């Protein structure tokens, strides 16, 4: 697995509106068979009576390549921004596995994570941290990737439980991934099955420390090694029927 160098990847996919076909999924017929009905090319009648052609994979999704979010040039401003980011970790409320049972204790008075500026948000657009709570089945991984890519940079991933580290209990299962860091960049691992709420709070503390010192750069790593991650993801998601990048 040789990672592509950063310079190759940083090339913007679309320059002055040139077509960006090379980024899209291979445009062959065998790919179309996985497409959902609503994502197939079709003709539709507009309210004014004219017939228009719709190709949802091209028209509805942005196909520009993700960009590295550079640090702010003035150092002190970047430091201030990092402090602000570390004090407002907004977590996407997507319970991907059984670790999500320990989230309710965290938002209730006993372990109250809000005092550290951590709170749950209902949509990826509002959140900047993603808790992968335990094992990930292939079907969920597909949704997780989409949710992760919809989140705004800077964004962080916390992987919970031993299942995300090496497969844990389900190391020999045919439907759960073994190592999360092959498919998504992980900032902080929290070990345990399942980790206690205190461990989660400690994990948030660690993430804060990383953000404050400017070391939580995994989202940029994802952008830099985008092709490598995509190749890994496509290896196990056999029915790839979504755009490669869909923020």
């Amino acid at each position, binding site marked *: 697995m040789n990672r592509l160098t950063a310079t190759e990847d940083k090339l913007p996919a679309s320059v002055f509106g040139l077509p960006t076909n090379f980024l899209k999924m291979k445009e062959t017929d065998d790919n179309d068979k*996985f497409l959902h009905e609503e994502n197939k090319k079709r003709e539709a009648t507009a309210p004014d009576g004219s017939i228009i052609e719709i190709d949802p994979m091209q028209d509805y999704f942005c196909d520009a390549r993700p960009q590295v979010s550079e640090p702010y040039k003035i150092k002190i401003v970047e430091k201030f921004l990092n402090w602000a980011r570390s004090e407002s970790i907004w977590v996407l409320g997507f319970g991907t596995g059984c670790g999500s049972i320990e989230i309710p204790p965290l938002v209730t008075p006993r372990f109250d994570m809000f005092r550290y500026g951590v709170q749950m948000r209902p949509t990826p657009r509002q959140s900047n941290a993603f808790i992968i709570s335990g094992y990930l089945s*292939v*079907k969920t991984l*597909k949704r997780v990737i989409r949710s992760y890519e919809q989140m705004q940079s800077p964004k962080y991933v916390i992987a919970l439980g031993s299942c995300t*580290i*090496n*497969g844990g209990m389900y*190391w*020999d*299962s*045919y*439907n*759960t*991934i*073994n*190592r999360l860091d*092959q498919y998504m960049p992980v900032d902080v691992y929290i070990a345990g099955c399942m980790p206690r709420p205190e461990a989660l709070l400690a994990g948030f503390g660690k993430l804060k420390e990383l953000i404050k010192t400017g070391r939580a750069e995994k989202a940029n790593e994802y952008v830099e090694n985008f092709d490598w991650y995509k190749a*890994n993801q496509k*290896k*196990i*998601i*056999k*029915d790839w029927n979504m755009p490669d990048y869909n923020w």
Partner: protein
Amino acid sequence: MKNFIKDLGYKFNISEIEYQRKNLTFLTIDKENVVQLLAYLRDYEGFKHFVLMTAVDWIEDGIFQLTYILNSPEKKIDLGIRTKILREKAEMTTVHHLWNQVATYQRELKEMFGIDFPGSPRVDESFILEGWDNIPPMRRDFDTKKYAEETFFPRPGRSTNDPSEYMKQKLYPNE
């Protein structure tokens, strides 16, 4: 319970009876008579509650065993109805018209075992897996460990021990 099973034996061709508990009995019956038996039990004997339906893969005999467990809320007894179908041509008559939830079970069996139930609603839609391109995973000849090692990226350094061997080495090596 025993009298009831005896009466049932006069009406249907039951090949094997196994009394497991005082309120649980397993019957084995031909594939062709299953639907009649289930309908009879539901309509005339009060076995209204369909508990579960599943398959067991006896690969060495080349058959799938299908088990339907019915429960009678009034008599408070359970009846397990077993039938055997060939592994090569795995096909079974659907019973989705008797209970509403059966279609889900049959959809799962189609996906996980590859047993076909012609006529069952949405039986060909995938239920649990997505984009699966191997043999149905619950069949005994599917090796999940091999598949996982080939498909996912195992973290190097993980070692496995057979627990009985390992404990013998650790605890009583001289025996």
